[in-house]
């Protein structure tokens, strides 16, 4: 009796193993040109449509089939994965500093990668705006309203989120201009972060906290994220408030030379990045609420959605090479404002 059961048990185990391994077999990719685009979180919707458009474009141009493999995650985490060996052909990240890190640590990207494509290698830009609850009950109009008593601000942690660094710099840029000096800016951001009840690790997490959990009065968000949240999560519940001044966020793209040469995909990878600057690429960017680098190529109807406001570039902070260590490194200004506050 025991023997029979043991035999049955063995049969079951064997069958499970066979099923498991056939699953593995079918999971393997076929031999076809593939590109791996390693990107950050908010570009999911953009690259979903863009990848399809590029595959069609490439087929028309060359007759070859190309499949784009897509990876999303926090910008810094994605950069680390590429440094540690993730075989990205192109990287499309949130921050220049993240691509610089790959270039420095692996040598797989040319040090002056920023000059290799037009517009500082940023085919689309965005800015930071406010998302508030319908009717704007706390009457939030501009940056000074965020430090008022009783106003809760939701923004992710600049230490773990690329988007949050743009938020921080936008607030800083405003305060430095309004107050006239660095101390004023320091005092302002310190006060602003005292009004932050939750520091999520990523931009999407912060949006969920604001929208789904009902926490906070205002969400600092990428413009494209705010539009998307409005569209996906209810235009009747939220509205966008545009501050008088914000930052010009430039999420850059780059070819990973070391990897494309190893994969033999240089030509198609270059074409992929250039396609971002084409009419179709720019139209898709604008459709997905990114401000196209070449607005003349995009649909005028889409462009109308972007409000006019004063934009400060990262160059006014001396570029990311200076801004990153000064504000966000261990012991930098962001850490200091918390040290004092506690």
């Amino acid at each position, binding site marked *: 009796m025991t023997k029979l059961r043991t035999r049955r048990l063995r049969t079951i185990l064997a069958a499970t193993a066979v099923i498991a391994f056939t699953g593995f077999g079918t999971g393997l*990719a076929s031999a076809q040109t593939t590109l791996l685009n390693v990107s950050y*979180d908010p570009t999911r919707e953009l690259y979903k449509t863009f990848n399809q458009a590029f595959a069609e474009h490439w087929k028309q141009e060359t007759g070859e089939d190309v499949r784009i*493999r897509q*990876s999303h995650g926090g910008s810094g985490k994605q950069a680390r994965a590429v440094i540690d060996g993730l075989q990205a052909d192109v990287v499309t990240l949130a921050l220049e500093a993240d691509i610089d890190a790959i270039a420095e640590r692996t040598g797989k990207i040319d040090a002056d990668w920023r000059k290799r494509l037009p517009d500082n290698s940023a085919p689309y830009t965005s800015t930071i705006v406010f998302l508030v609850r319908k009717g704007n009950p706390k009457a939030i109009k501009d940056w000074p309203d965020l430090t008022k008593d009783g106003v809760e601000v939701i923004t992710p942690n600049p230490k773990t989120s690329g988007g949050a660094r743009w938020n921080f710099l936008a607030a800083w840029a405003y305060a430095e201009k309004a107050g006239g000096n660095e101390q004023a800016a320091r005092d302002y951001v310190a006060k602003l972060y005292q009004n932050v009840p939750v520091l999520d690790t990523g931009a*999407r997490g912060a949006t969920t906290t604001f929208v789904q959990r009902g926490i906070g009065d205002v969400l600092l968000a990428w413009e494209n994220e705010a539009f998307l949240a409005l569209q996906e999560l209810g235009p009747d519940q939220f509205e966008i408030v545009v501050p008088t001044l914000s930052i010009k966020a430039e999420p850059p793209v780059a070819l990973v030379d070391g990897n494309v040469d190893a994969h033999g995909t240089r030509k198609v990878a270059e074409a992929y990045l250039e396609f971002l600057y084409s009419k179709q690429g720019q139209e898709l960017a604008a459709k997905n609420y990114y401000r196209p680098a070449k607005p003349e190529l995009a649909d005028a109807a889409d462009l109308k959605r972007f409000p006019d406001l004063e934009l400060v570039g990262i160059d006014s902070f001396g570029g990311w090479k200076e801004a990153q260590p000064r504000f966000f490194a261990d012991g930098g200004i962001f850490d200091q404002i918390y040290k004092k506050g506690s």
Partner: protein
Amino acid sequence: MANANLASTPPLGEAAIAPLLPPAHSKTSATGEKAATRWTLIAIAIGFLALFVLLPLGAVFAEAFRAGFGAYWEAVSEPDAVAAIKLTLLAAGIAVPANLVFGIAASWAIAKYEFRGKSLLNTLIDLPFSISPVISGLIYILLFGAQSVLGPFLREHGIEIVFALPGIVLATIFVTFPFIARELIPLMQEQGTAEEEAALTLGASGWRTFWHVTLPNIRWALLYGVILCNARAMGEFGAVSVVSGHIRGETNTMPLHVEILYNEYNFAAAFAVASLLALLALLTLIVKLVLEWLYADQIAGTRRH
């Protein structure tokens, strides 16, 4: 088989597994509690479980079906989800047997012999429990990543470990490493070596003794360990997230796919895939119940399960 058990009173544990047996304490006896105490304790147990486990689970299912059954089916049958399910089953399918073999070997060594350093070995087995998932993924990056000592060698030979299947499997094995051994060791220690010694004295070979004496004695703990190990292997998020590379449809396991969907504001689909994981865990538990039912006669004859 176990003659040592013949004289013992009907074991208490059976009430937990054999529906055919009368409940262990249907009447108040010298070794039971008053009805009031009994029901208070039951109420506390159920209340605690309801609050901390049932409610979150209910929330997952409620969210999963919010958009209707059609949307649920679509979410779990779309190609990326299917690829994630396959990858998860594959990773668990490799990790669990590997840890099973280890669990048996380690508990055999620890429970059946006395040797120096046993406590240390025993502690080392638990070590993966106490390591933050963030770190458990990171260690494989430090070992096999492009920046590691082994990195250049692996690249030269075209061996992909991290950001591919082997890395995911390794991280899964690491996280679920102690489960089976942890279930077996205390039981085998308590059972001692008398039965094995008897079998050996009667001329049975080592393997035969293991197969016919030890294995039947530990099989329920073994099954239990496999179930827990499997549940955790399929549900692991943190460690796998570090070594996965997050390539859609390729290196995304189910928990990672849940995260992706959630981050796309596709909450219903995210919870649908999550509920599937809960269902898979429940499925293994149903298998356990069925086996217990099949073997009810034998359980009644042995002390342990």
